[in-house]
């Protein structure tokens, strides 16, 4: 079969990153349609058998360099290299979390870029929140819900794939119809392989047949509301709780007083905990529309899931999960847990319905076929036109500037830190003026302005 080449740019295992697991699970499905390779930052990353892993910096040297590109982007610093690769060459992007502010903040992106993204995402709010950030260095948790910073990914991608209608609607509300016309929904993916058998998983973990096991999973961000779980279990002392994942140091004493915290687990151990559970509690508040790999694993295993009726979770069929209203909080969770503990067969029935839904909608061949359709449709579209100008923040040093601009072409924006106002005057008075004092030959200075203590230069670099 003559399969066109496809390069997936993504973290891969052993990165402790749910998107790395997702990418590794998706690749065999895509390999049915494409001659796949995976480009990575960690050269020792592991792809499924038969799929070569290549250093991203050398991916252009692979045979068939005109290959289609698929980027996997999430909202954490492990995806910085994916964003950089997308900036260098457009492709189809899976946006696992429509909010990308944490990615931008945690990878050294320039504050001017972040402020510009905030302005674009929510113009009416940006002035106030940007002032907090600029003047006091305050970046609240609310920022991550209000300002998604997805504009650049939308603009640079030939198509954008999200896992829920909620995520697409959220992007559309923020960025408008035109900017999101190429956003498509492809459901999350079932994990590879057969999930562990419940009885075997419980025996392996030493869970007694009569024990009612509640599992929470993954990195315990605040939005996963382990505080609600803790409160809900106050009146349910017989229920056993394991958190299969890491817990931030600030939360660990409280959670660890009631739950056993496993820390990060290898995939097979993680799956065993989920399969052994009577119920997976997978809450979100607030939700930014993110998808959940843990939920996909639980659905595959036939484990009953309790979720928040919000974001992507609200799109699951009513009989496949228990969806709690957001207003209910801990009492609603306590009530649901007590009912399940009293009637475990109901949990089994819900788990079975969840598995049937997942097998119909989230199986690898079906998901891979939808990816293929999205990628091929994107190939027929013209490449993105309005690419946002990359912004580089540097000291006002000619050598550093030359190094940073080496290899770049087209429009570029520099934000140069000035140690003192006199430095700007000195640069302006240099023989040949500011441009000659700072810029390499060929760089055309289009505009200059002061922003705080930074000098922002708009450049046109030779092709």
């Amino acid at each position, binding site marked *: 079969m003559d399969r066109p080449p496809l390069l997936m740019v993504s973290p891969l295992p052993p990165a402790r990153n749910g998107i790395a697991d997702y990418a590794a699970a998706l690749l065999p499905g895509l390999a049915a349609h494409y001659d796949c390779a995976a480009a990575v930052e960690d050269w020792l990353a592991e792809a499924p058998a038969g799929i070569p892993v290549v250093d991203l*910096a050398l991916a252009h*040297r692979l045979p068939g360099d005109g290959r289609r590109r698929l980027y996997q982007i999430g909202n954490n610093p492990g995806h910085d290299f994916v964003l950089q690769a997308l900036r260098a060459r457009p492709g189809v992007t899976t946006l696992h979390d429509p909010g990308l502010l944490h990615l931008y903040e945690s990878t050294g992106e320039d504050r001017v870029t972040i402020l510009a993204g905030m302005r674009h995402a929510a113009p009416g709010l940006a002035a106030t929140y940007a002032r907090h950030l600029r003047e006091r260095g305050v970046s609240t948790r609310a920022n991550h819900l209000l300002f998604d910073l997805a504009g650049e990914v939308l603009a640079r991608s030939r198509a954008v794939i999200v896992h829920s209608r909620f995520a697409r609607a959220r992007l559309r509300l923020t960025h408008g119809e035109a900017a999101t016309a190429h956003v498509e929904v492809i459901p999350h993916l079932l994990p590879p392989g057969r999930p562990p058998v419940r009885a075997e998983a419980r025996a392996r973990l030493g869970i007694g047949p009569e024990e009612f096991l509640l599992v929470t999973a993954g990195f315990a961000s605040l939005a996963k509301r382990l505080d609600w779980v803790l409160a809900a279990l106050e009146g349910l002392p017989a229920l056993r709780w394991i958190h299969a994942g890491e817990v931030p140091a600030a939360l660990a004493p409280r959670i660890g007083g009631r739950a056993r915290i496993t820390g990060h687990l290898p995939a097979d151990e993680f799956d065993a905990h989920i399969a052994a559970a009577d119920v997976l509690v997978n809450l979100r508040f607030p939700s930014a529309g993110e998808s959940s790999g843990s939920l996909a694993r639980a659905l595959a295993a036939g484990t009953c899931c309790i979720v928040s009726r919000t974001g992507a979770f609200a799109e699951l069929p009513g009989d496949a999960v228990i969806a709690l209203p957001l207003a209910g909080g801990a009492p609603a969770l306590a009530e649901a847990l007590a009912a399940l503990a009293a009637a475990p067969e109901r949990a089994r029935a819900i788990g079975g319905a969840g598995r049937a839904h997942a097998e119909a909608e989230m199986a690898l061949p079906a998901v891979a076929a939808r990816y293929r359709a999205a990628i091929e449709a994107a190939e027929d579209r013209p490449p993105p036109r309005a690419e946002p100008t990359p912004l580089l923040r540097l000291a006002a040093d000619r050598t550093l500037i030359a190094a940073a601009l*080496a290899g770049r072409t087209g429009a570029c924006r520099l934000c140069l830190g000035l140690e003192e106002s006199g430095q700007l005057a000195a640069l302006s008075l240099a023989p040949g003026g500011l441009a000659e004092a700072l810029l390499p030959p060929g760089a055309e200075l289009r505009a200059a302005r002061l922003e705080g203590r930074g000098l922002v230069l708009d450049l046109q670099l030779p092709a």
Partner: protein
Amino acid sequence: MSAAPLLAALFARALPGLAARDLGLPLGALLPWLPGTRAGVADAMALDPAERALLARFRQQGLPLLGLDPVAEAEPDPAWEEARDRLAWTPSGSPMPGASLTLVAGGTGQAPLADGLARILLLAGCDDAPERHDLLLPEPRLAEIYECLRAAAASLAGPGWQQGGRSLTPRQASLLLLVPRPGHVPDLLLPSAALPHDLPAPGGPAGLPLEGVRQLRLLPGALPPLRWRLRLNFAGAEPGPTALFLDGLRIPVRPVPGGLVASIDPPADRAPVLGLAWRDGAPPGLRLMALEARP
């Protein structure tokens, strides 16, 4: 470009003290074969942006590759400026500024010579696949350089080699040096101090410090398209579990005392990039000393 090792040997013998710059990356044909050669590109903007970004990662003796950082190149380079003979190897058909000798890979065709310039047509390489390269030089030095090259060719020639040449006009001469198959492909020993790499700190005579390094790229320059046995020599510690990469793809590697050994089939049209990776960082004290390659 199998003539590159032969031409390197010819110039090294003909012009002792020669300073050389190989501006032919991403090929880098001369780079491994003429000790002390600085690597670079003739026209960075003509490169694919991804290749340009890749090459911009490398440093040689602490300096960016030539042609990628005009500011760094504005700094004095005494080894180059003070050399009597300064050879630039380039795919570009015109003399390189600052070079006293410009070796145009592939020749200049029928292009007329600019005033004041002379040309030596070099026909070199395997006798069944000779390559043409043109040496551009100032007209007053033609006779002297031609004689040096001719004498060096005569002294280099071994059994079965063909060598000869003649003055064609006052501004043009030709020199022929052909070798039976598989050509002149000597063993290669590259000290790490000369190797372009992408670590922030330069190496030195004591080697390239690697302690704690998780990933490293090396740019040895082009090897003729044969199967090569590579050996990476280390000091200070054994390298431990190490992965080796050729142009970004992992290849089998075998540890030996003090080093790593692998077989590679380098691409014909560019300098391969070698990569080394350690899951938990390179062991304490580990230094890369040299790269050996044997056809």
